């Protein structure tokens, strides 16, 4: 194992939640998010021996889970299922009930809109706005030109704007 590279178990414990969150934003439901996160961690275990910590670890993890998602979509042409009303563990406790309900409603609405985007547009938007990757990092992760990333993010946001208006 190269120096400075965490063990697989450290990655699972420290970044498992991150992987799950990205997987959920891409897949749109908990069952597929759990499968994706688990598959991604298996890939991580195989890849850690050769991992070169040049970029951020979370960027690398996001790339793995995103590519797994797109592979799965291409294989199954699965459409994301938006699981509404299943957010009992999304928000921390203690907030007023109406605030919690409003926040859930808002999150559900945005997630539902994300789920209606084409897979490539959703992936670009999630990698940019959920994961926080730069256009160049997204291009590298997806194996596409930066201009295509720019186009997908813009079109994805434009569609979200219409869906949320």
């Amino acid at each position, binding site marked *: 194992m190269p120096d400075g590279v965490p063990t697989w178990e450290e990655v699972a414990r420290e970044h498992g939640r991150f992987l*799950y*969150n990205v997987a959920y934003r891409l897949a749109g439901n908990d069952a597929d998010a759990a499968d994706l996160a688990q598959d991604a961690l298996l890939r991580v275990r195989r890849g850690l021996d050769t991992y070169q910590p040049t970029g951020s670890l979370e960027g690398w993890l996001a790339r793995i889970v995103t590519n797994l998602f797109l592979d799965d979509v291409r294989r199954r042409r699965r459409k994301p299922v938006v699981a509404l009303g299943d957010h009992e563990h*999304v928000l921390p406790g203690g907030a007023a009930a109406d605030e919690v309900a409003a926040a859930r409603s808002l999150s559900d609405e945005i997630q539902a809109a994300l789920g209606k985007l084409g897979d490539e547009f959703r992936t670009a938007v999630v990698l940019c706005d959920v994961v926080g990757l730069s256009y160049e990092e997204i291009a590298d992760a997806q194996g596409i030109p930066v201009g295509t990333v720019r186009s997908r993010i813009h079109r994805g946001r434009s569609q979200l704007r219409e869906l949320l208006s």
Partner: protein
Amino acid sequence: MTERRGPSADDERELLSAYLDGELDEAETARAGARLAADHGWRAELDALRLVRDRVRSLPEREPPAGFIDQLVRAGRSDLARRSDTVHATMRRTRRLAAIAAAAAAIGVAFAVPSTESPTPVRPAIDESADGHAVNAALADDPISQLAPAAIPASTGDGGTP
């Protein structure tokens, strides 16, 4: 003659999201800035895109179900152990197969090596057998076999049958 086309209106509008994200180069940033200063529609669209972007960015982290990470780690450990067992079993099987292959090769070599011993002589010798046959034929009044020149051995010279 090929006419070179400039960027379409959609291409130009794609500048807006990249402008918002600080992903334009210097020349593109200047172009987008000039357009925004002059075009109210562009400014309205930029504001709308910013709102959408901020809403997505404000999504709370989706927590995995309780115990999910522990389950993943346990599954990973048992999978690692299983893989390790599989590797050891494969290595044992490979060693066994290699030993069998080596033994088979040794046996094959033993059969393939040409013998350095002299061939076992035919008993009785062919010439002796032929002579014996001729003698018998002569004693039995066989006209064909009598054509073969053969001396009648002394031991059978009494003219009787052997």
